[in-house]
């Protein structure tokens, strides 16, 4: 079992945190895990992405040329990384920011209106964790528990009050992804 995931978007969208939570959750579940970020020159804005690898074997490369999962939080990221999803892989699209469709028959594509869902949960800044919920729905590991304790330990370090909001967002995202009709509500071409 090995999964190579790439998460990409604007700086400020909480991209790196998503990766961190995924890696932490994988570790909580006993996997070897690595997280590696990269960003543009801007301190705010600009692009940001990170690669998360988890595996039951010692991890060699923390980066990859192709991915089992790509999460595109904005359009440039979709354009750049969408083609790099392996056949049989998963592409998660942030429908709130990306109007265009993707036609690859060899992979699963889920469009999640993360912003709208986040607003529904009462906190527009948790779109990123909404998206993680979708990943949770679409892939067997890590488990919900592993994500929750990841959220607890990562958020707990800084602002404990955020834990509930994020766990709510996680499950809202999961539910949305389980009802795929919902996932194309907006902006489908």
């Amino acid at each position, binding site marked *: 079992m090995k999964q190579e995931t790439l998460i990409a978007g604007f700086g400020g969208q909480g991209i790196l945190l998503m990766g*961190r939570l995924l*890696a*932490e959750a994988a*570790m909580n579940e006993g996997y*070897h*895990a*690595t*997280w*590696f*970020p*990269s960003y543009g020159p801007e301190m705010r804005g600009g692009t940001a992405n990170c690669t998360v690898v988890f595996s039951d074997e*010692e*991890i*060699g*490369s*923390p*980066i*990859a*040329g*192709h991915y089992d999962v790509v999460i595109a939080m904005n359009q440039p990221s979709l354009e750049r990384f969408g083609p790099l999803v392996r056949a049989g892989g998963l592409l998660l699209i942030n429908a709130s920011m990306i109007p265009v469709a993707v036609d690859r028959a060899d992979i699963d594509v889920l469009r999640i209106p993360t912003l709208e869902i986040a607003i529904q949960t009462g906190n527009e800044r948790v779109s990123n964790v909404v998206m993680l919920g979708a990943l949770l729905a679409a892939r067997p590991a890590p488990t919900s528990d592993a994500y929750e304790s990841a959220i607890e330990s990562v958020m707990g370090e800084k602002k404990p009050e955020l834990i509930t909001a994020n766990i709510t967002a996680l499950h809202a995202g999961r539910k949305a992804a389980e009802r795929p009709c919902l996932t194309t509500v907006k902006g489908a071409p």
Partner: protein
Amino acid sequence: MPRPLRSSEKRLVKGNEALALGAIASGVECFFGYPITPQNEIPEILSDLMPKLGRVFLQAESEVASINMVYGAAAAGHRAMTSSSSPGISLMMEGVSYIAGSRLPCLIVNVMRGGPGLGNIAPSQSDYYQACKGGGHGDYHSIVLAPWNVQEMFEFPLLGFDLADRYRMPTIILADAVLGSMLEPAVVPDVFSPLMRMEKDWATTGRGTRSHKNIINSLLLDPVELCAHNELLQAVYREARREIMVDQRFCEDADYLLVAFGIAARVALSAIRLLRKEGIRIGLFRPITLYPFPTEQLVSAATHVRSVFDFELNSGQMLDDVRLAINGHCPVEFYGKMGGVLPGPEELAGEIKKRIRNEGDIL
């Protein structure tokens, strides 16, 4: 005391953080450095912890000042370190030559990035020559350690200081932007034991009750004296060969050997797994000490192989040392990317297969 850490239990740690905590655990007494990406977490963490532990943290005005502060602190007998990335390290070359010439132990961390010039902040290994062959003037060397995971980022400061003290020479930890920035589970200590200062009878601590004065100096105007001093240095470097460390995987039955260090060795390990799945018997030879280089170890690992592949994130710098070791015994092939491009395992595996095929040497 710094925030307590969960003991002997793995947690996700960033490479730079592990290095900073490893430095503290190694008993570093003082840190002097100047900000530069991608190693900023090292000074940032130390700026917090060192004063709390009663140790010295100082952001220097430049890398030139940093290395000369390290020189001063090391001269006075303290475990002293600095940390920077490629362009900043280049500014330290005169200072490193002085440190080596004066036989001072210290720790220098280079979290390498793409060059030359300002380059970029992506992972690279293009400072191998500088670190291993002597980027400064004169016939000197540093011990050069190449970690490949976050756990080694934590452990190598202690190892590095111990070696530096044993041989009275600088140690360089050669990491890169990936190792510095990546998170990985690692065991980091619970508590930091209090400092144990080593007695260094040569140090300029202030004379105290010592019967003679100590001088730290690399000036020997008489060529005969400077020659003798250099011969001493060379003898020390030969001595230090006993500290050579290598990591070998899948080498027992190998028809091919893949040589790589640091982060490149991890890509190599993944590539080897892919190749082995296709029945290609290839092993990994990972030098941990880049200087002294594991020449004899490589010779014996390569005795029965058909060819040796060298993979680096540069134009082929360690390649010199690999070829010098192999010395024409079998073909040596190189693959590398420069400027911060980190090829994936598939790419590397594909390249190796192509070369094997080209050689008509496919099994």
